[in-house]
C-alpha cells in the first residue's frame, strides 16, 4: 500500500466511519431520559424520598446514555474512548475523594462533635485534675468552688473528644472562640455561665446544646476544665 492510498482512505473517513444511529433509537433514548428525570425530581416535590445512592445511579445512567448514544462514543472509533474515558474517571475519582474527605453530605450538627479529627485524640492529656482533698498548689485560685464541684469525670478528656474540632487542641480557638483568654462571647466566664452555654448551646452557631450528648456529669467536668484554662472568672 502506497502513501497515496492511505491518504485517500483517511480523507473519506468521516463519511462512513460508523453506521448512523437511527432516529427511533434517539427518540427512545429521549423517552428514557425523560422518565428517569421525572423519577429524579420526585423528592423535590416531596412525592416520595430517594436516597443519595439511587439518585447517583440515575445520574450515572443518564450520563452514560448521552455519552454513548447521543455522542456516539459507543459505536465510534475506540481512540475517542481512550482519550475521554480515563479523563472522565480521573475527574470522577477526584470528586469522590474530595466528597469523602470533606464529609460533603454530613450535616453540620453532626460535624461539631466528630472530635477525633487529624489525630488530636492521640495527644497526652494535660494535667488539670487535682484529686479531692489535695486541693493545694495549682488549684489554690479556684479554691473552694472547684473542690466542691470536683466530679469523677476528667474534663480535659471530655474536651479533647468533643470540643477540639472547633475550639482547637489547646482551646485557643478555631471555628469556635478562644477559651483561654478573658474575652467571653457568651456569658461572663463564670463557671455557671460556661455551664449554661454548654447546656443550652448558642443559637445560630455550631455550638449546640450538649446536654443530650454528654449528660450532666460530663458537662460539669468540661465546664470546670474550661473555667480553669485561664479565662475563667
Amino acid at each position, binding site marked *: 500500500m502506497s502513501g497515496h492510498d492511505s491518504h485517500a482512505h483517511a480523507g473519506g*473517513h*468521516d463519511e462512513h466511519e460508523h453506521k448512523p*444511529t437511527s432516529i427511533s433509537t434517539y427518540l427512545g433514548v429521549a423517552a428514557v431520559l425523560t422518565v428517569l428525570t421525572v423519577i429524579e425530581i420526585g423528592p423535590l416535590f416531596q412525592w416520595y424520598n*430517594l436516597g443519595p445512592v439511587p439518585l447517583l445511579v440515575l445520574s450515572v445512567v443518564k450520563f452514560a446514555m448521552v455519552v454513548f448514544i447521543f455522542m456516539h462514543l459507543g459505536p465510534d472509533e475506540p481512540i475517542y474512548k481512550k482519550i475521554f474515558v480515563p479523563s472522565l474517571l480521573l475527574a470522577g475519582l477526584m470528586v469522590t475523594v474530595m466528597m469523602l474527605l470533606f464529609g460533603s453530605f454530613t450535616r453540620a450538627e453532626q460535624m461539631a462533635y466528630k472530635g477525633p479529627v487529624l489525630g488530636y485524640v492521640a495527644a497526652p492529656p494535660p494535667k488539670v485534675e487535682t484529686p479531692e482533698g489535695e486541693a493545694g498548689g495549682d488549684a489554690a485560685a479556684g479554691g473552694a468552688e472547684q473542690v466542691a464541684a470536683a466530679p469523677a469525670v476528667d474534663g480535659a478528656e471530655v474536651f479533647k473528644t468533643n470540643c477540639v474540632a472547633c475550639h482547637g487542641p489547646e482551646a485557643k480557638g478555631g*471555628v469556635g472562640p478562644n477559651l483561654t483568654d478573658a474575652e467571653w462571647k457568651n456569658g461572663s466566664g463564670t463557671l455557671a455561665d460556661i455551664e449554661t452555654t454548654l447546656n443550652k448551646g448558642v443559637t445560630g452557631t455550631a455550638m449546640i446544646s450538649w446536654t443530650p450528648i454528654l449528660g450532666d456529669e460530663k458537662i460539669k467536668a468540661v465546664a470546670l476544665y474550661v473555667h480553669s484554662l485561664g479565662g475563667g472568672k
Partner: protein
Amino acid sequence: MSSDHSAVSVHEHPPPSFGVPNLKLAFWLFLASDCMLFGSLIATYLSYRGKDQLFGNGPYPLDLFSVEVTTISTFDLLMSSVTMVLAVAAIQRGNMFQTRLWLGLTALLGAIFVGFQGYEFTHFYLEGLKLQGNLFGSTFYVLTGFHGTHVTLGVVWLLLVLATTFTKHKNMVTHLNVEVAGLYWHFVDIVWIVIFTLVYLMEYTV
C-alpha cells in the same frame, strides 16, 4: 511514506494519524480536559458543601433553591440534547431544512436555559447570596457560572453554524462540523446532569 505525509501537509490538511478526522480527535481531547475543569469545580463545591452552617453564615442552598425553576431548566436542557442529535442525523441524510430547524430549536432551548440561569442568579443575589459572601455563594456561582458560560458559547456556536447554512459558504457546514458542535452541546448537557444531581437533588435528600 513519511516523506509523502509531510509533502501533503504543506498545502492541505495534514492526513489524520489515527485514521479519524483530526478535528474530532482534537475536540475529544478538549472535552477530556474540560472534564477535569468541571471535575475540580464540582469537587470544590462539594468540599465546602454544608460548611457555612458551621459558621452560621447563610443563606443556605435550601433557603434559595426553587423547585420549579430547576425542574423546567433541567428538562429544557435535556430536550435540547435531543434536538441536537436530530440536527446531526438530518445533516447526515443531507436534509438541509431539518438541519436548520433542529439547530435553531437547539439554540433556542439553550438560550432559554441561560435565561433561567440569569433569573436564578438575580433572584439569589437579591436574596443575599453574594460571590464573596459565604462558601456556598463562591462555589455555587463559580461552578454554575462556568457551566452557564459554556451553554452561552454553545448557543453562539450553533447560531453561527445555522447562519452559515444561509450563506454562500454553506458547503462548509458538513456532517463533521455539525457533529463536533453536537459533541460540545451534549457535553454541556452531561455536566448539567451531574450538577443537577450533586448540587440540587442531594439538597432535598441528604
